[in-house]
Structures are given as structure tokens and as C-alpha cells.
């Protein structure tokens, strides 16, 4: 049977269910009698005899095998492989075994790898792989007709449907007790609205249409946290929960056994709801899927193939989780076990060594202000390339086998292994090579092809970035801070060397940050920058891209201290008029849409100018844009939805002590019965900034028509946003200056 591997998951104990998408568009359910293994290392084999007997009923069999226990090991050692009967119980079984001996007696491996991923690794297949499957007894035999390295791969025609529910709200926000008013299903074939009969009839009709249309993907917005749980609740209320099925396997849609989780990452609190899985059909929640929302289906397909994760999982996985899967695959291929609880610690460093080592990439403070004729050069995937080409990995940096290695970490002098390729460079090879090729293909194509290659290269970019972060992440299975440090040390050397080359060629450094350089030379043309790029590439050994020459570019000062430059807050216009904007309001996700629109309109006017003087001459026109938006705000001519701020809750609803704007919105939501968690995103409009109670802000969901938003506050905030982009060109355009202009314009005192 030929087709594409579409979905897989553990079925009954000892079974792996696999769905194959056939050439005729049908999906075929296959069953492989297979279950995953975990591995146990111990110093004394006799310690294992009794524990293995105790958990014996949970195991299909055990045997002694040879594997690499630690990523730093150079030779395989004896470990026990334990094949579990029920894939879904692998973590419970391993946990039970662990508790049967004193702490540390048993070293456990491959416990928390998802069984579906283990299956993919073991059979050398991946989602959407073209293959031929043969049933041999109770087992499936796979013949792969695909290559994960392929750049041009065929994806079967896949049916996609967008599911939404119209709710008959009794309160301000939808609740599980509200009745279903209608259900919509939208696909390429058109839109179907189910709104006849009672609620149960509508749910039955939904089940029937999904069964008949047999879509491969059901896409929802908030399906994990609200829509699917809501449908389950409504089915329960109507007594038809035992007939609510939307997947191919006939499983009932049910509430997840555990709630979502709040977590803290890079200075922000996030919330992740439990996933609502369909079997044999993929449910994508556009609100919880990073890869889908950023890069669409093409990004999701590429990520699932490369990282060998079922699409349901990869659509919800953080990029770090996807990257881990890629590393697990390479570990599994090389006979390296994946520790359940990693214990790899960093090498000892004295104070002086720690101070030299524990630094990030290099930064040259930007020269604040507006500049003309500045060229930008960026290293292409510098960190992934450093890891790949310098063999940087947890086990290769300061390895015991190559003390005299010629591959040494700059500044620190640490040796890097010359005998074997590390797990990180092995895993990252496909990312580096495929991304480079996709970028070439993207640059030489148009339309759909361009978009496809772009989505694929974008998802690979995220994987590359995450690889570096995971080298220093304490929960990463193959991370060690020494490798992370080594990458930063290489970065500093590469950037400082590049600056020396640029200065030698007569360029002045305007700004430099980690892997990007902004340089300038009087009268320099494109050819001069290309020559600089070529010289840097040949001397450092790392590829660069020339981004272009700016007609003007502005590096902004800190908002707190106007004398201090900020590293990543700038905007500029290239010679072709294209804008590059970083760190200002228009780039922030929490900025109201109206502010973004206003700021970008101003920037587009400035981008028409060919020089700084030209841009200065356009300032009055830009001020006119501010005045237009401000007047519109005052007259409530801007839709409320465009004025909504978005924020992630930094704490639980009960933890607020003062009535901040955020707290005011939270309080109203909680009062209406909305269950909120730390990390969840809320949207609100400022309604009474000077007030002291919860009326200071109104949640966007509560806005019915036009809310009485606090126009004075919004005009002031708009003036601040506009001054960010205008003040560099005209010192009078401070927020106060713009407010004064507005007062003159309206001739009505605001205060």
C-alpha cells in the first residue's frame, strides 16, 4: 500500500495506530503491533533483578543491550532495555521502577520521548513521508520512498476545514452554559452554516458533515481552551456526549484529564491550555500553534518532517520541543540514550575564567541619531553555523580525548573535539543546509513557490535560533553551558574581526550587534559594501548577506535616559524605499492597531525622502497624520477594536494588589465568571485612566459597539508613539510638542 504517513498514536496496549493518506484521497487506518522501550543503567546488575520482577507484568520483555549512556561517553556500555506492554504507561512504569531502589541506583533513559516519536525514529520515517507499507503478520514493514533532505517534496492534496461556533451569549462573554446558536464549517468548497433544529440536532449535523466531508485538518481559533471543551459541555447538557465524535477513529471528544500550565520564559509569563486531540485527523488551534500561525501549513509540514513529530504535536510544540525531537532522533540513530533526568554539569571554572567565559555576543553601541548612506551586513545564521562548523556541542567542548585539539575556543582556549562530531552539530546540519537552499530557492522564485520556500526557511530559522538557547537551557537533554559559552566566544571573535576588516577598508562602524553590522564610508557604493562583505567572509569563514544601503537610518536613545543609546531600537529606509523597523511601538505586539497604523503611515512618508534633510522637510506632513489620528480619536472615529491593548497576565487574577489598568480588566472578566490563569492573554481598552476602580479599563469582549474609551489618554499615548519616529528629525516633535500642536489644531484645551 502506497501513500503518505499522515498521523500516528498509541492505540490499545501493544499497538501503534498509523494513518496512511492514499493516492485516491482516502485515509487508511493501519495497526502495527509495537510498543516503545525504555532503558535502565545501573552499577550492579543484581540491583535490577527484584525491581524488574516487581514491574514484570507491565513489561513485554527485557534484554541486555549496549548503548552510550551519556553524551560524553566514548564507548557503549551494558544497559537493560525494557519493552513496555502499554506505550501510554511508559512514564508510570519507569517511575515505579525508580522508586524501587535508593535514589540514583537506576539511571533511566528514553522515558519521556513520546511513543509516536520513538516509532518514527525507530522506523526511519516521518510525517508526510511518501512510503510503501506492507503488513507482515502483526507488524508493518516500511519502505521509504522519500528523503527528509528533499527540498521539493510532494504533499498529498489535504482537505482543510475551519470550524467555528456562534454562541447565544447570555452574559458579556461566552460561557459553557450558553446555547449553541449556529455552527460554521468553511473550506475551499465553501461555507456551511448549521443553524436549524435544536442544539442537539445542530451537534448531530456537525458530526455528520465532518464524517461525510472527511477533512484531514480541522482548524479552530481557541479550540483547545474553549471551542472543543464548550462543544463537549453542550453535548453533555443535551445528553449526547456519547455520540460527539469528530475524528476518524470514532473516539469521543472529551475534556482533557489535566488543566493547562502557566510557565515563565524570557521574562514573560505564558499559559498553555491542554490540547484537544483528534485521532486520524489533525486539530490545529491557530491560537496555540506557533509554527502554523507564523509559517502556515508549509512551515508545519517542514517542521514535522524534519523533527519527526506527529503534526498534532508539532503544531502545538514550542520550537525547543521540536528541536529536542530532532536531537533525540540523532541520538537514537547513534545508539545514544536520552536521559530522563539530565545530570550533565558544567566544568569547574575559577573566578577569572568565569568572568571571561560568562559573556554574550559582542555589541558596539549605536551612534545615536539619524545617519545617511549606512550599509547593513548580516551574518547568515551565524550561531547555527558556528555550532555546525566548529563542532560545538555539550560533549565536544573540553572533551577529554583531544587535549591538543587545534580547534580551540577563542579567548578561553578550551579544546574542542576533533575525533567525533557532536550531537548538536549532527542535528543542526539539516537545518543549516536546508535553510540555505530554501533561501536560494525563495530568492529565485515568485508567487506560491516563493511563499512556500519562505515559510519553510522561516521555520528552520527558528530551529537554528533555539538550538543555541538549548545549549544553555537547564532542562535540555544535551545542553551544557560550556558549549553555549563557546558559541558566544566565537561570535565575539567573528564580530570584532569583522570590524577590524571594515575599519581597515575605511568604513566607520555605526552599530554592531551580535551578527549584524551597520557601517558607513563617504561616497561608498553597493560594490564597496560587497567588497567588504567578501573580505569579511574570506577572513572569518562565515557567510554574510548584504541587506542594502539606507537612505537614512535612525538609532534611538533610551526612553528613560535620552543620552543613552538602545541596542535594538531603530528604523530606517533602504534605497528602494523598503522600511526596516525594530523595537518601536509599531513592532510591539501589545500596541493598539490604530497606533501601529499611524506610526507606519508616518514612516512611509519619511521613507519617500532620499536624505535626512528630505525627511526633515516631510515632518509637517507627518505631524498632519498625527493630528488626523488624534482628532479622529477625540471624535471617536476609530473602531474600539483598534484601540485594544493586549497583554499576558503576569500573575493569577487573585494576586493583584493595586488597581492597575491590567487589574481593572482582569477584575471585570473574573466578575463575569471567566477563568483566567497567569500567562493568559487579555485585550482591553482604557476607559477611565485617571479613575481608581475597575472602570479604568474595559475588556474588549465586553465592548458592545463603541465603548466610551478615554480619548484624552489615547491622544497622549499616540503623541508618545509618534514622537518616537518624529523627534529624531525635528527636536520640537517631543510628545509634549505634539500635544501642543494638537491643542493649537483643535483650539480646545484638553486638560
Amino acid at each position: 500500500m502506497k501513500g503518505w504517513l499522515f498521523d500516528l498514536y498509541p492505540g490499545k496496549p501493544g499497538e501503534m495506530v498509523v494513518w496512511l493518506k492514499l493516492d485516491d484521497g482516502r485515509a487508511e487506518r493501519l495497526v502495527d503491533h509495537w510498543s516503545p522501550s525504555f532503558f535502565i543503567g545501573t552499577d550492579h546488575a543484581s540491583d535490577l533483578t527484584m525491581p524488574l520482577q516487581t514491574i514484570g507484568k507491565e513489561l513485554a520483555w527485557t534484554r541486555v543491550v549496549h548503548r552510550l549512556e551519556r553524551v560524553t561517553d566514548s564507548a557503549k556500555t551494558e544497559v537493560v532495555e525494557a519493552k513496555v506492554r502499554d506505550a501510554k504507561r511508559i512514564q508510570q512504569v519507569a517511575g515505579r521502577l525508580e522508586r524501587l531502589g535508593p535514589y540514583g541506583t537506576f539511571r533511566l533513559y528514553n522515558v519521556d520521548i513520546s511513543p509516536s516519536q520513538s516509532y518514527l525514529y525507530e522506523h526511519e520515517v516521518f510525517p508526510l513521508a511518501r512510503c510503501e507499507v506492507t503488513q507482515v503478520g502483526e507488524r508493518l514493514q516500511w519502505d521509504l520512498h522519500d528523503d527528509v533532505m528533499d527540498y521539493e517534496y510532494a504533499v498529498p492534496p489535504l482537505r482543510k476545514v475551519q470550524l467555528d461556533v456562534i454562541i447565544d451569549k447570555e452574559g458579556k462573554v461566552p460561557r459553557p452554559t450558553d446555547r449553541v446558536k449556529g455552527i460554521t464549517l468553511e473550506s475551499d468548497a465553501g461555507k456551511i452554516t448549521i443553524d436549524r433544529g435544536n442544539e442537539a440536532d445542530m451537534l448531530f449535523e456537525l458530526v455528520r458533515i465532518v464524517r461525510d466531508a472527511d477533512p484531514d485538518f480541522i482548524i479552530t481559533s481557541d479550540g483547545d481552551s474553549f471551542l472543543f471543551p464548550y462543544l463537549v459541555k453542550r453535548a453533555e447538557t443535551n445528553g449526547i456526549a456519547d455520540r460527539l465524535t469528530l475524528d476518524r477513529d470514532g473516539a469521543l471528544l472529551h475534556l482533557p484529564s489535566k488543566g493547562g500550565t502557566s510557565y515563565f520564559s524570557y521574562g514573560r509569563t505564558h499559559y498553555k491550555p491542554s490540547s484537544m486531540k483528534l485521532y486520524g485527523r489533525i486539530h490545529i488551534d491557530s491560537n496555540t500553534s506557533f509554527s502554523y500561525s507564523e509559517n502556515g501549513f508549509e512551515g508545519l509540514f517542514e517542521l514535522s518532517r524534519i523533527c519527526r513529530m506527529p503534526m498534532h504535536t508539532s503544531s502545538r510544540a514550542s520550537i525547543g520541543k521540536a528541536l529536542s525531537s530532532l536531537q533525540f532522533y540523532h541520538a537514537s540513530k547513534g545508539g545514544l540514550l536520552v536521559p530522563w533526568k539530565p545530570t550533565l554539569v558544567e566544568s569547574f571554572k575559577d573566578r577569572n575564567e568565569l568572568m571571561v567565559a560568562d559573556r554574550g555576543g559582542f555589541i558596539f553601541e549605536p551612534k545615536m541619531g539619524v545617519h545617511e548612506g549606512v550599509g547593513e551586513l548580516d551574518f547568515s545564521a551565524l550561531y547555527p553555523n558556528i555550532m555546525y562548523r566548529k563542532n560545538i556541542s555539550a560533549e565536544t567542548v573540553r572533551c577529554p580525548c583531544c587535549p591538543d585539539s587545534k580547534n580551540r575556543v577563542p579567548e578561553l582556549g578550551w579544546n574542542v573535539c576533533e575525533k567525533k562530531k557532536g550531537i548538536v552539530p549532527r542535528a543542526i546540519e539539516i537545518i543549516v543546509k536546508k535553510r540555505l537552499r530554501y533561501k536560494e530557492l525563495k530568492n529565485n522564485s515568485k508567487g506560491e513557490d516563493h511563499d512556500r520556500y519562505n515559510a519553510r526557511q522561516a521555520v528552520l530559522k527558528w530551529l537554528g535560533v533555539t538550538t543555541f538557547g538549548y545549549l544553555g537551557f537547564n532542562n535540555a537533554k544535551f545542553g551544557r553551558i560550556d558549549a553555549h559559552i563557546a558559541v558566544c566566544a566565537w561570535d565575539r571573535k567573528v564580530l570584532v574581526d569583522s570590524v577590524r576588516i571594515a575599519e581597515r577598508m575605511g568604513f566607520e562602524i555605526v552599530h554592531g550587534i551580535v551578527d549584524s553590522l551597520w557601517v558607513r564610508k563617504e561616497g561608498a557604493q553597493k560594490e564597496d559594501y560587497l567588497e567588504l562583505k567578501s573580505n569579511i567572509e574570506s577572513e572569518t569563514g562565515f557567510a554574510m548577506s548584504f541587506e542594502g544601503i539606507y537612505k537614512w537610518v535612525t538609532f534611538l536613545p533610551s526612553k528613560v535616559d535620552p543620552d543613552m543609546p538602545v541596542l535594538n531600537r531603530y528604523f530606517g529606509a533602504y534605497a528602494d524605499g523598503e522600511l526596516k523597523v525594530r523595537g518601536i511601538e509599531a513592532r510591539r505586539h501589545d500596541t493598539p492597531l490604530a497606533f501601529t497604523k499611524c506610526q507606519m503611515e508616518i514612516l512611509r512618508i519619511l521613507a519617500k525622502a532620499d536624505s535626512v534633510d528630505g525627511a526633515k522637510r516631510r515632518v509637517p506632513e507627518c505631524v498632519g497624520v498625527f493630528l488626523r489620528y488624534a482628532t479622529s480619536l477625540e471624535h471617536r472615529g476609530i473602531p474600539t477594536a483598534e484601540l485594544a491593548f493586549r497583554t499576558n497576565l503576569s500573575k493569577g487574577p487573585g494576586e493583584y494588589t493595586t488597581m492597575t489598568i491590567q487589574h481593572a480588566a482582569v477584575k471585570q472578566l473574573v466578575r463575569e465568571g471567566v477563568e483566567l490563569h497567569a500567562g493568559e492573554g487579555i485585550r482591553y481598552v482604557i476607559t477611565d485612566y485617571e479613575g481608581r476602580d475597575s472602570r479604568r479599563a474595559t475588556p474588549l469582549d465586553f465592548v458592545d459597539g463603541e465603548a466610551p474609551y478615554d480619548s484624552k489618554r489615547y491622544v497622549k499615548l499616540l503623541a508618545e508613539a509618534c514622537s518616537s519616529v518624529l523627534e529624531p528629525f525635528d527636536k520640537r516633535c517631543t510628545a509634549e510638542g505634539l500635544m501642543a500642536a494638537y491643542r493649537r489644531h483643535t483650539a480646545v484645551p484638553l486638560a
Partner: protein
Amino acid sequence: MGRTVPSFRIAEAQEVAGWKAFRKALPGKDRAAFDQMTGAARLYTSASSAAVRPSRFEGMAMALIFHHQKLLARAIRSALEIRQGEGSP
């Protein structure tokens, strides 16, 4: 894992904060000069960070000496230009 040693940008801000009592004891107009001085040190943060000194004050002090050297050279150059201008017919 993660950073054990704070970045020099953070360390520098901590050092300035550590001199809060000194700043507070200065007359009002001197406080502005003090802020200007600490601000000048921050113009060379990358270089101070690259120097990797056990005392964060050392990096800042070198940055200030260097900045003053540049100002001095500029002042001398200006003075010479003025003198040359006065001497010319």
C-alpha cells in the same frame, strides 16, 4: 545554568546605584555633573565588558579616564586652532 556573572551593562547600573549616597550628598548642580560623568562611562560599555576586570569600578574608571583623554585632546586641538587663528594675519 544561565548567566552567573551579570552583563556589564547591568553591573554598571548597579555600580552607579551603589554611589547613590555620594550623589545625594552633592549640591544640586553637581548632581547633574555626576550624572553626566556616569553617563560618559556608559558610552564605552562594550569595551569595559571586553576588558573583563574583577571590579566593575575598574572598567568604569578606565572608560572615564579614556573619555577625559579624548575630551582633553579635543580641547588642546581647539586651543591650538584658536591660537593659530589669532596668530594669522
